[in-house]
């Protein structure tokens, strides 16, 4: 009987979790009888907060100065500490764009409870890549869509490095590809250890801060020298190698419960 009640409860609650909230229109989160969590991305270059126009050094000793840093976050879910099961967040396709601070964070309405894990897809799932014209953060006007080989650029770095052999020392990484063998989306799983768990309370908004280190793109799973690869703008092995690297760029820096 208890199980049935629990299932019935899930029936009542889950649809809300799956409903398609419009990105960024959910600022009232946590005020309508639900709990909410604001996901904050903090872009980094190593230990420093990322700034455009500042020269940083990769772990391979190459300099890099960024002028573009963008990536998609989608398919977010949390793990309930008590039920030890995943709770999908409302459907979200969010573009974090270093040039626009309003994109650094967004709010998700969630049922109240303790959460000990956040996971999300870095990139846009294959379904959305083949589903025709999209809007919001998936609008091709965001310059994150390949028009000649339809599909989203999942993450993008543009900048300069004295090691680049390209005209004006350009570094251009447009990382895309969603088909088998070329898939550059990566499932990111970040655990919240005891004492740092998210505790969502009705009518309140909790905050989670996630650092994203741009310098991680160049090493980790694969050492990728700018001198050898200043430009990656097509799907393929180089792109998936960079994806293997950027899969490690996130870590949780803080959790603020209400």
């Amino acid at each position: 009987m208890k199980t049935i009640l629990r299932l019935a409860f899930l029936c009542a609650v889950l649809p809300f979790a799956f409903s398609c909230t419009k990105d960024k229109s959910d600022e009232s989160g946590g005020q309508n009888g639900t709990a909410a969590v604001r996901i904050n991305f903090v872009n980094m270059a190593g230990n420093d907060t990322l700034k455009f126009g500042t020269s940083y050094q990769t772990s391979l000793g190459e300099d890099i100065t960024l002028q573009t840093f963008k990536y998609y976050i989608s398919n977010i879910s949390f793990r309930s500490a008590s039920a030890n099961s995943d709770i999908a967040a409302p459907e979200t396709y969010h573009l974090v764009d270093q040039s626009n601070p309003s994109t650094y964070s967004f709010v998700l309405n969630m049922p109240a409870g303790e959460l000990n894990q956040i996971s999300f897809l870095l990139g846009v799932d294959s379904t959305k890549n083949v589903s025709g014209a999209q809007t919001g953060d998936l609008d091709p006007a965001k310059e994150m869509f390949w028009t000649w080989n339809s599909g989203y650029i999942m993450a993008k770095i543009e900048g300069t490095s004295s090691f680049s052999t390209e005209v004006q020392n350009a570094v251009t990484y447009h990382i895309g590809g969603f088909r088998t063998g070329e898939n550059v989306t990566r499932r990111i799983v970040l655990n919240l250890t005891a004492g740092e768990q998210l505790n969502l309370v009705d009518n309140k908004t909790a905050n989670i801060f996630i650092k994203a280190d741009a310098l991680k793109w160049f090493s980790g799973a694969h050492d990728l020298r700018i001198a050898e690869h200043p430009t990656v703008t097509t799907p393929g092995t180089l792109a998936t190698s960079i994806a293997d690297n950027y899969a490690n760029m996130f870590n949780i820096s803080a959790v603020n419960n209400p």
Partner: protein
Amino acid sequence: MKRKVIISLLCTISLAVLALEACRKNESSIAPGASVLKFDIPPGFPDPTYKFENNTPTQQGFELGRKLFYDGRLSQDGNFPCSSCHQQFAAFCTFDHPRSHGFNNQFTLRNAPGLFNIAWVSNGLHWDGGINNLEVQPLAPLTAPNEMAEMVDNVVNKLKADPNYPVMFKAAFGDETINSQRMLKAIAQFVGMMVSANSKYDRVKAGRDQFTAEEQSGYSVFQAKCAVCHQEPLFTDNSFRNTGLPIIEGLNDFGRMRITNNPQDSLKFKVPSLRNVNITYPYGHDGRFYSIGAVIDHYRFDVINGPTTDPLLRNGISLTDDDRDNLVLFLRTLTDSSFISDTRFAQPE
């Protein structure tokens, strides 16, 4: 236990329904007063591959798409609307041009194909299949530096500045919001509705007309030698094949391989439909052939055997001169003159 199963089943179903319902709100919806257009599937045609259920054509959406199709403001300098390369009198290909003209005196890489029965294209659009959904196709020419050379944002802003467009977007989609999604869906409605299925061939098939003896003989040749790739009734099987054409230096176009990075796809291009072939010359992905006869003679005499040349073409296609001439006469019966004179698809007043 049974109850548990039933409850979770119900739960899953209600979830799915609710999730779908919720997502639908994000799609560009139909305006309340808009009149829905019926998409007729011609006799013998399969179901279309384009999912009209996600973009229900309406008279208002279609008219908006038509205006956009003929509007030069979709290009950087105003000179290159979609219709500059897709001319109705030529079944919406670029007549008499191997490759089309684009922004700043540049040529396109490939021959602009005719536009008809696009709703049935599968396996990707374009000669290399790089476009995975009809709705996003216009983004390719729109942003290509040698075609329309524009940016999506700029186009949307130009449309917003026009007094007529907000009214038309509202009539089609319910409010005056202008964004790329609505623009693209409207164009998809217009282009998706372009159906060509009223040629002499179709009338013969329906028992309302008769082939001449030569056409009939050409049809037999076609069925024996061409129909595997140019499958009826669409006259393409939507596959990619290397037809044994030499590379043109300077173009260096390797076709499908650009999309898949797979060497086995080198020099493969999408099999084009042969409908309206007589009015869509020149032929081939780069428009190198100036007559249907020249294409047929390529298959008879000039197929180059490379690693990816299609197995069906390795020995060429053996045809007599009479076969060729009759084949050409048959292919002329695929011209749909009602389609090219259909005022629904013509430039709006």
